[in-house]
């Protein structure tokens, strides 16, 4: 028995005493530190630390790319944006549509009706009414007994004059569709106003997508250094947060220092990122992004946005008329006439032009009618509280009716 006790004691003294003592010292230090924090009025709470770390992690994950708008777009994916000399920017998928459309339309097509859909509104209306549109168009006398082929060039943020530039380009390539349907108005006003607020002319493409294409990535050494600094800080933050989440967060002694380090790195990262972005936009480069001097004030901004829509739509009508292409222009329902659930909630800068948008556009549209454009105000066709599908079907029926369907 005494031998066993003595063996146990020897084992304890040899193998457990010192590690145990060290552990006790560490626990003592940890507790002492926590008490000191409490006495200092800044208690360390695991739960609080966890939520802080989660927030820092979230912020860090967001800054994967120097420009948020380019994040998440996979190279080669249909929604990847590419610069285009005449359209400003274009999704890769739209570029593919353009190639297929031009090749198809160059083939003799007596038995085919090529319909080109343009305008941001088409992305909100036609996904749910594609088949109905084909069906309705095939019943119009002009297109009867022919195969309806829809070429959808609409992108979420397309706005005038991009539709016009697209048609000019298509026709310059030697093709002419049978019908062009432009559903627009919302982006022209809302993006136009948001552009102007961000010091970009309303007639330019949506700034937040145009900007990364103009300035994406650093091409000089200082810009690259800023990017690298941002990136390196982000990686170090990732590493520390990984350790914190692996359990380190429960050791106040280390975790509080680590969180402070993450916060410092986050500040360094943001400073470097801001410097990079400022550098990108510096001096005369700004003029590339901005275009002509944007109008100042809500009234002038709204007028410039509406002018872009009216003039470009009128020109679309002129080119179509000269080339014997049927053309329908639709003012999509938006703002107070928006179809519930059909569009995302606009941000504050986009809302600036909303109060008078419809009045201004409807007034301008009288010029379109005078110029012979087939023009539809969707708000007069779609009743309040219609679902997106009902709205799309009503609009399709109206387009077909205006094209002569029984």
């Amino acid at each position, binding site marked *: 028995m005494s031998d066993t006790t003595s063996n146990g004691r020897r084992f304890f003294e040899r193998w457990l005493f010192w590690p145990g003592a060290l552990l006790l010292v560490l626990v003592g230090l940890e507790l002492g530190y926590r008490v000191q924090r409490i006495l200092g009025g800044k208690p360390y709470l695991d739960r609080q630390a966890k939520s802080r770390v989660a927030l820092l992690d979230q912020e860090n994950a967001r800054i994967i790319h120097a420009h948020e708008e380019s994040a998440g777009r996979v190279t080669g994916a249909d929604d990847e944006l*590419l610069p285009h000399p005449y359209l*400003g920017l274009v999704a890769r998928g739209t570029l593919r549509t353009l190639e297929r459309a031009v*090749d198809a339309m*160059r083939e003799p097509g007596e038995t085919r009706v090529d319909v080109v859909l343009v305008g941001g509104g088409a992305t909100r209306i036609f996904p749910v009414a594609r088949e109905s549109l084909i069906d309705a168009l095939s019943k119009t006398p002009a297109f009867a007994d022919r195969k309806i082929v829809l070429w959808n060039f609409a992108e979420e943020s397309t706005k005038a004059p991009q539709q016009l530039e697209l048609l000019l380009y298509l*026709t310059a390539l030697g093709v002419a569709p049978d019908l062009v349907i432009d559903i627009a108005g919302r982006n022209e006003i809302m993006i136009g106003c948001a552009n102007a607020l961000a010091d970009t002319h309303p007639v330019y493409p949506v700034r937040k997508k145009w900007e990364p294409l103009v300035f994406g990535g650093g091409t000089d050494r200082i810009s690259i250094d800023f990017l690298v600094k941002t*990136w390196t800080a982000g990686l170090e933050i990732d590493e520390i947060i990984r350790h914190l989440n692996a359990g380190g967060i429960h050791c106040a002694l280390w975790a509080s220092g680590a969180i402070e380090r993450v916060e410092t790195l986050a500040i360094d990262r943001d400073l470097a990122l801001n410097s990079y972005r400022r550098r990108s936009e510096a001096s005369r480069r700004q003029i590339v992004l901005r275009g*002509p001097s944007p109008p100042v004030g809500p009234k002038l901004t709204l007028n410039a946005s509406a002018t872009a829509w009216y003039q470009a739509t009128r*020109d679309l009508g*002129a080119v179509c008329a*000269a080339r014997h292409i049927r053309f329908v222009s639709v003012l999509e329902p938006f703002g107070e006439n928006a179809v519930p659930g059909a569009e995302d909630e606009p941000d504050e800068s986009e809302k600036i032009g909303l109060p008078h948008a419809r009045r201004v556009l409807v007034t301008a549209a009288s010029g379109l009618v005078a110029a012979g454009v087939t023009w539809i105000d969707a708000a007069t066709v779609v009743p309040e509280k219609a679902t997106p599908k009902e709205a799309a079907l009503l609009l399709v029926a109206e387009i077909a009716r205006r094209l002569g369907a029984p």
Partner: protein
Amino acid sequence: MSALSQTPDGRRVRRWPRILALQLLVWPLALVVGELGLRGMLAVRGTPYAAEVTLETLASLQKQNRDFVPRPNSDLPWNPAESERAERVLHPYVGFDIVGGLELLDDQIRQIQAAPVGEKHFRIALFGGSVAQMFGDLGVPTLQKLLEADPRFEGVRIDFLSFARGGFRQPQLQAFLGYLFSLGIAPNAVICLDGFNEVAIGKQNAVLGTHVSFPSVPHWAQLVARGTDSPKAITVAATVRSLQKELDAFTAWALESGVEKSAITGKLALLHAARLRRRCQAGFIEYTQLLRSPQLRRALAGPVLATDGADPVAISVALWRESSRNMRALCEARGIVYFHALQPTLHDEGAKPMDSHEVRNGRIDADWLVGVRTGYPAMRAAGKELAAEGEHFFDASRIFEHVTAPLYDDACHFNADGNVLLAEALGPEFLKALP
């Protein structure tokens, strides 16, 4: 193996001072022998060691190390800007513009908005490439006088607005017109003076792998070659920058510390610096390759169309014709007079008897020559077609055919005399187009 050894008389003495002394003697001697041996070997090989060369090489590696400006499209030609105002920048609707052009447009908009009410204006917008741009400076004064002499312009102020830019060609001109109308700019007449860039650059674009309908590659390609902010590219950039900093620090130390005085240390320093430089270059190439991604090449190449492989010049002519139809449609719907002139060019056969100065200065790129030689006859034929449809088309390609005096400064631009002659030929035709 004790540190102590025994002498024959049995005394124990310490060995390490002797070992140390031997080391102190042998190593420096070995270094000197090595240094002399290396120098001798290098001299025998015909490349004797020179400290100055080592210094120069280190300094050069340090200097080269400062470059980190990737040009992903460096394999493509690039027309550098001649001044800050001529610096080319991206434009959403016409591909590119020059800084001076963007500033000019701002001024033109202000000028139109500030025009006094009641004053009678006749605004003529001029479109085209560099020939039209020069015509705006050198030919327009003559044209203006011709127009002012016409009774229809009595009491009317004639303003010319130049929207011509070096390198511009169809379909950029039609895109520019559509963009201007969207801005609310509406002139009374449009003069489109074009032809050369359409066929010459069209052919060159095709050879360089870009669609004929896209802007001139030498003017546009480098603008599309932006940097990248993808994580992979930034990681590569970070590695390269860290290696560059290491090389910077090492060469700075080596240049200060006098390593070049010894052939051994000098050569070692050069080897290390060169190895760092090679790694930097490899990283730089990888970074540039990432920028030269299929994404950017896709953006640069334009559409891949099934029927466009055949004859780029024929496609250029078709684009020119269709774009002109569009410009006319845009103008006529607004009651704007559209006047289209095919500009003369030196290498269009029969366009002008070349004098020795023009033969010497008018040398032309082979692709451009093919474009002009085959494109101009086709454009003349297409122009007749346009005129038959009712377009005010003026074939100015033969206005110098009997002028023997030198007019051309290069393959396509003509001097002040040539511009006056063009204005004198164009004026009466333009007046015929006016109501």
